[in-house]
């Protein structure tokens, strides 16, 4: 199983990518285009969510079609306290993580009893429940969303009201989450998760209670997405339940698969391609969804294993094996 230890890209590409992200604010200043910072901030936040989803989808083979719900939970964990003038960032992020983990624990405990397409559909159903919960709470704006007047405060340690600071906060978060997922995947726990993806019955025969392992993995994944949601709430300053629509869950899956599910940096790459292509095409034509959708179909039909698979196909040296 060499495929367990894979980061998805040659090391120099990853280092270059992270260096680029670190230098981007300076670059944006230099070319006098502050919008770039916003674009890449969104990209990195969604990358965190995609990396979280990849933990169960790529490594664990659990296709959750409802992970956008955790983004919403995380965002409202910032928004609702802010509504009551509580801006303590430690509290808000703690709520985001624990609330997402709690929801993931309850829904995962039920969803993981099912397999295959039933799992896809039941996770989607739970996400719809979360969506409708927030839609129906009039107090917090329901359909119209909630404006967050002030970003989280970290007891004077960090002032993320400033976009530059928030940018680096997000970047450090992304690196931390990548590190966390790397550690998880390469631990004994991660091996069990990957093993259960390959052959669950065999893992059970060896003596692992795979259901519990999967549930813990699902909870961690949900918590990471909740964290990303809290960042997203801080970033946009305006949150709506619409962020949890099933379409966005679909987009998250696509980001993961596009970059190569089951590789560490794949989801980041996939999200980057997704967001940048979206940005580029939407400037070319208002009908950009058409080439975008067509590209999606072509990618699925012709390249198994996303962009990573394409690199491999082009003969680039890369650490990833194809999707099994």
């Amino acid at each position: 199983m060499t495929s367990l230890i894979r980061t998805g890209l040659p090391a120099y590409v990853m280092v270059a990518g992270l260096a680029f992200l670190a230098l981007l604010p300076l670059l944006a200043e230099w070319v006098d285009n502050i919008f770039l910072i916003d674009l890449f901030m969104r990209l990195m936040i969604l990358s965190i969510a995609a990396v979280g989803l990849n933990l169960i989808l790529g490594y664990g083979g659990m296709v959750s079609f409802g992970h956008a719900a955790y983004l919403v939970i995380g965002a409202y964990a910032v928004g609702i306290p802010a509504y009551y003038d509580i801006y303590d960032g430690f509290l808000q992020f703690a709520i985001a993580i624990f609330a997402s983990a709690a929801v993931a624990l309850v829904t995962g405990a039920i969803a993981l009893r099912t397999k295959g397409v039933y799992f896809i559909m039941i996770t989607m159903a739970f996400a719809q429940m979360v969506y409708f919960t927030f839609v129906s709470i009039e107090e917090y704006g329901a359909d119209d969303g909630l404006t967050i007047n002030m970003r989280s405060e970290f007891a004077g340690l960090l002032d993320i009201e400033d976009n530059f600071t928030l940018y680096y906060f997000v970047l450090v978060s992304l690196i931390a989450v990548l590190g966390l997922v790397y550690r998880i995947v390469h631990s004994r726990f991660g091996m069990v998760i990957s093993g259960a993806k390959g052959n669950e019955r065999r893992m059970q025969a060896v003596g692992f209670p795979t259901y519990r392992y999967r549930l813990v993995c699902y909870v961690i994944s949900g918590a990471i997405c909740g964290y990303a949601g809290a960042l997203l709430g801080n970033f946009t300053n305006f949150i709506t339940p619409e962020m949890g629509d099933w379409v966005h869950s679909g987009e998250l899956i696509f980001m993961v698969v596009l970059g190569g599910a089951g590789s560490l940096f794949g989801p980041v790459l996939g999200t980057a391609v997704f967001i940048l292509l979206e940005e580029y095409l939407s400037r070319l034509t208002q009908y950009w969804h058409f080439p975008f959708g067509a590209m999606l179909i072509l990618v699925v039909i012709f390249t198994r294993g996303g962009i990573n698979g394409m690199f491999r196909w082009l003969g680039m040296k890369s650490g990833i094996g194809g999707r099994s």
Partner: protein
Amino acid sequence: MDWGLFTIQMLNGVQLGVLLFLLAAGLTLVFGIMDFVNLAHGSLYMMGAYFCATLVQLTDSFVLGVILALPLTALLGWLVELIVVRALYTHDHLDHVLATFGLILCFDTAVDFIWGPTGMAIPLPEILDSHIDLMGGHTFPVFRILIICTGLAVAGFLYVMVAHTRIGMLIRAGASNRTMVMALGVDIGKLFALVFAVGAALAGLAGMLIAPITEASIGMGNEIIIVAFVVIIIGGIGSIKGAFVAAMLVGLIDTMGRSFLDQLLKIFMSSESAETSAPALSAMAIYILMAMVLAFRPQGLFPPKVR
């Protein structure tokens, strides 16, 4: 309690159920026979509505519009199967979800390009645009009764086709064991293209029937397709009977929940908390139902025999 209002909401629930059945019938057959997850089924529902709206404008007749739009939607379904879906049979469910997600984007944009961003209303002839009287001074639109009758007729037709014809026998056989049907020399590719086209026409019919009430609009299929999936999961994938029962169940629970759940909750709790929790609960009701069915009966209520 106002029984007139109750009757009206019952009828509305049945009408929603019938629409869901039209969508779910094609979806469940496609899913059951070829194991293909088609998120873009909702797009065919939308395309049916737009075809019909255009044809009604051209011909000035609703009935003629529907009759002409049906084969057009079937043709579109057949083309989608030929160009995109056929290449995906050997892929896994995740790929189906992604590719048909791409199809949704393409269809939504194509509609925006051809018909523009604003919706299209479909005018009804006068006979259909009237109301009939019910008890207690309530009235009910004739058109909604037509929807219910059409849906029940289609359900009856499908039942006869699936249970008593050779094609239906092949469909049932395909749903329970695809490989064996192929081994017996049946061209399952042709069978599936047919099922896909018929499913598309049924979805299109649902779109044509709802459009005079809501108007044809971009993305109209994206909400209802999820509910249609809930229906086929509850009913058991591949089962027409299951789709019908689950569609009625979902239609009634959704409609009745939205209208009467707050009154029901008021029996147990204060009227204030009942009024705040009722909308959330009623919107979630069908998803709760599906989660319960999946947790206790993972194959759905009427799974096809022998998997």
